[in-house]
């Protein structure tokens, strides 16, 4: 934290942080909706938010103010948010189908 901070740097970092998570959520929501309703339109729109999320993260690290360590953390989470929807979908879907099959076998 050695670099000097200006008012506009602060605004940029805070607002981009806000939008980064907000867009990550929007991406996840739309991706999930697209999958569940089987409408690829939602999934396509969701990728716009994925890009927006990543862009917000890049904006966060543009001012000189943050040290490299922090910039890495931010970019690491930005990458993680890119794959959360797919990853979580896989987890939830796999466990649902697995357990539903178990339940059905029991009923027979």
């Amino acid at each position, binding site marked *: 934290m050695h670099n000097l*901070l200006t008012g506009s740097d602060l605004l940029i970092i*805070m607002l981009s942080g*806000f939008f980064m998570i907000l867009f990550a959520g929007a991406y996840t929501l739309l991706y999930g909706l697209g999958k569940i309703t089987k409408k690829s339109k939602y999934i396509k729109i969701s990728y716009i938010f994925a890009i927006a999320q990543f862009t917000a993260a890049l904006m966060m690290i543009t001012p000189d103010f943050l040290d490299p360590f922090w910039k890495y953390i931010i970019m690491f989470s930005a990458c993680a948010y890119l794959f959360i929807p797919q990853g979580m979908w896989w987890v939830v879907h796999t466990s649902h189908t697995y357990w539903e099959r178990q339940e059905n076998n029991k009923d027979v």
Partner: protein
Amino acid sequence: MTKQGLYESQKLGLWYMVAGLILFGAQNLFGLLIAYQYINPDFLFGLLDFNIGRILHINAMVVWLLLGFIGAIYWFLPIETGRETVGIKLGKLAFFVLVAAVTVVVLVYLFIQIGPGNQISLWFINEGREYIEAPRWADIGIVVVVLIFLYNVIATVIASKRLTGIMGVLIVDLVALAGLYLAGMFYTVNISVDQYFWWWVIHLWVEATWEVLIGCIMALSLMYVLKTPRKIVEGWLYLEVFLVFGTGILGLGHHYFWIGTPEYWLGIGGFFSALEPLPLVAMIIHAIYDAGAHKLRTVNRPALFWIFAQAFGNFFGAGVWGFMQTLPQINMYSHGTQLAASHGHMAFFGAYVATNIAVAYIMVQKLRDPEEKYVFDSKLWKWAYVLMIIGIVGMVGALMVAGFAQTEIERAVGGSGWQAYIDAQLHPWMAEAMWWRLGFGFIFFIGYILLIIDLLTIGKNKEELEVLPEAEVSHA
């Protein structure tokens, strides 16, 4: 069992929820009072000062949320274990002791507003730790009540010889939650040490043990509302516990930036709490999947919609609003501004108030429609739902604008001087926001009133209800 087919434990759960919801009303009234005092500081000055109203507002919040959680557990416990709760008489006694103690504490706050900072005050008036200000005698009482509650839960599970995954997680979590409370009970003369342990209670409650607790309550609720199979909610719960504890425990460090704790907390706190939104984003997928997989077919619409509100509210309040101010480089400027209050309102409402309301609707259905023959629904709950959400979002938005103005004008540009402080306070973004907060607070309060009316009336008139298709009537 009672005439509605309720276990005694469920009756007790209901009492807890009723007591909680009444206290929620008191919380809101004090909120409106102190919001008005922000605008007109002379109002009731000397009679009911801001600091007292604030104490009552936030302590009522903590207590009512806990009452609701405990109520939810007494409610679901017999369903999970298939038997009446062990030691239920003692549990009921504890309830009355707790309600009496809370009443006395509130009266003392109201009647003795000023006094010396000595041992007598600490034991009998106020222990002086924000959010958990109960004097020490009441603290000890609370510990006893919680021990009885833990005994009820653990003894029932043992007696039933059936430990489900959810109950296993729940018991471990409750023991941790109760144990943490003790950390907030020891007076030390060193304010850094005092704050250090105080945050164990506050942060490790709301960002670790409470999150897991509502994870359990949500799992139980989903099994009821959507009939989601147990294995699925349990698998999900384990993952959630792993992610929430993994990031939330050391995320504690985001409160150790400026209180005199060693510098390494800047790195630890910033790192882990920056990752805290990850599980909250992941939960969105879970909510959508479950809702979609069942095509929104539910036995209880208001409960289901409050469960959605929970998934999204938790993400917004804790995830988006928390992350925005959690890096030490940012927090150095935003610390203690209205941004903290903005985040606090959104997160507590989204994560915890929504949970309790969902459970309240589940309880009411059992009272009015014990056989689950109907889809539980009404017109009024939608109004309450919308008004409460608009109210809270409006308040949070206003506070966020004010917080940005403070962070920018007072801190970043003005360098935190006295004049800079005054400039920020007088800035329209700050001054007008306080009016907006009050206005939206009223909207929230109207929503609360409608919620209570709805809880008292929903499902009474069976003709208004949709009959559940025969095939879907619960087999349980």
